[in-house]
């Protein structure tokens, strides 16, 4: 083996706090207590990814999880993802209304451009819309040309704001992947909160060149895609895990402070006929608890502040 350069044993950031300047080191249990409206203990943030996976995927710098995997044209993955936006989402709407959920929709701007019917439906419902990037193959990544990324952020947000008629204050990067500049570009384009960093259970301040924005805790570990397709657990197991998480967070909230149960779900995963029942079971279980507050992401952030 070749010898490593001596700088491999130098540790320039080995000091109190984090090894970067984006946020402060802080343990959750040491922070001030948080109370939700009407004395509720657990905010339920159901976040629905409405995604467009282009057939002509470039895969730069990697193939987005959930994207095309076969040689072009990968009709199986293209159409199965499209299924969610044509069929599965309408099952979601019914379930949300039945159990009193207030869903936040994270939308690929390219999908919004392509599906005016669906966008009008969400606008009529009055649910919160946040931006999920331009499309799932338009990744933000380390080494990306900064001008190119700046144009991508601007195009994504300007387009979705125009179509939705909403201010669009929230953001999730495709694959929750970022460049070193992404948070700065988001702040420059009017984003006040983003959901890429999964290092906390509560909102916290994230520094950018244009002042702080808020990192909102959207769990990857509890995602339908992560558990059912990445980990290959059954939909029933996903539901068990969510119910266990709900019980635990509610218990923790009783002794400590208000907590957030964030469920990031996708109509192409849970909107399938054999899985939708498990989503309904979960929503029934959670929403039947008096201490639970179903809310939009923006409402949770407003109550937190």
């Amino acid at each position: 083996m070749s010898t490593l350069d001596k700088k491999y044993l130098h540790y320039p950031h080995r000091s109190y706090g984090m090894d970067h300047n984006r946020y402060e080191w802080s343990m959750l249990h040491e922070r001030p207590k948080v109370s939700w409206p009407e004395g509720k203990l657990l905010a339920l943030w159901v976040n629905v990814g409405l995604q467009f996976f282009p057939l002509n995927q470039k895969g730069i710098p990697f193939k987005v999880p959930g994207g095309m995997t076969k040689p072009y044209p990968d009709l199986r993955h293209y159409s199965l993802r499209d299924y969610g936006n044509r069929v599965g989402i309408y099952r979601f709407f019914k379930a949300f209304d039945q159990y009193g959920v207030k869903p936040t929709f994270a939308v690929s701007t390219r999908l919004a451009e392509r599906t005016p019917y669906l966008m009008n439906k969400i606008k009529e419902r009055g649910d919160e819309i946040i931006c999920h990037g331009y499309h799932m193959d338009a990744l933000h990544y380390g080494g990306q040309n900064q001008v190119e990324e700046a144009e991508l952020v601007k195009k994504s947000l300007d387009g979705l704001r125009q179509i939705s008629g909403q201010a669009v204050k929230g953001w999730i990067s495709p694959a929750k992947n970022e460049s070193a500049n992404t948070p700065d570009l988001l702040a420059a384009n009017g984003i006040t909160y983003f959901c890429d960093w999964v290092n906390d259970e509560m909102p916290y301040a994230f520094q950018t060149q244009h002042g702080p924005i808020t990192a909102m805790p959207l769990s990857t570990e509890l995602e339908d895609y992560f558990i059912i397709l990445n980990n290959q657990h059954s939909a029933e197991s996903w539901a068990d895990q969510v119910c266990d998480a709900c019980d635990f967070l509610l218990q923790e909230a009783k002794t400590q402070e208000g907590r957030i149960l964030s469920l990031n779900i996708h109509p192409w995963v849970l909107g399938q006929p054999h899985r939708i029942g498990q989503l309904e079971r979960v929503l029934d279980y959670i929403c039947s608890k008096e201490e639970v507050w179903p809310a939009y992401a923006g409402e949770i952030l407003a109550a937190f502040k």
Partner: protein
Amino acid sequence: MKEDPGYYDYWPYENRPKIEWPNGAQIAFWVAPNIEYYELDPPTNPYRTPWPQPHPAVPGYSIRDWGNRVGHIRQMELLDKYGIRGSISLSAALCDHHPEIIEMCKERNWEFFSHGVYNTRYTYGMNEQQERDMIKDAMESILKHTGQKCAGYLAPALSHSELTLDLFAEVGTELFGEEGGFYSCDLFHDDQPTPIHLRSDKRFVSIPYSLEMNDTIAYLVQKVPPRQYGKALKDNFDRLYAEGAESGTIMCIPTHNYQVSCAHRIKAYEEALEYITGHSKVWVTTGREIASFYLEHYYDAALADIAAKRI
């Protein structure tokens, strides 16, 4: 490169000298929380890439940070509830970054053993002096921040050289004589301690740490559901507990706060801890205490038995 690491001889599991743990226990049970610091932008190593994405690797970095910000206190409260002192596999740089965590563990008289400086600085490619320096840095940091004479080692990110165990033992002797650097968690060949051959002939043992019961192996590599992991922990315990009536066994649960403390997983873990500590003949202990007890009472008999059975 060698065909065999040369650390130990073949030593069949049957007919070994009988081990009896303190107070008639059949099994020594320990929990080893890995408390780690992963760097957002570590230097490159030609043999292993720290993150799957180009810098910044937000998904991997941020969930590990969650373990320190949120997960640590959850697991700590659980171990308190069941009377378990953690044996921490520590990224020594965490003493500098997050001293609050170190203080909480010190208050509980938990053990700190070395897991290198950062979990993003690999042994691969280090020359002997570099590896010795890295090992010494970590042991000195543990002494400075905790007052403990580090006894055990799990190489950072399980990255090794041919000399890893030798260097750890030698630095331990240099710093602490026989009171430091006397057990390893890096070998997975047995359910009981094993005397290890070292070039220094130091009295040194391998203590079973278990990859199979490791939450990150279960959740991240094997991708099992939480309840299946909880059942595996109980099944593992049941068999080792029963076999321990014949000769004492060891069960370790190696954990990571970013895995086992997640709200959807902690219940399965708690049920296993409740089950295990609910048995009477369990010695709930630490890695260092197991290694010390074995070195004092069984190490010499083991050496003699191994020699007698050597071909």
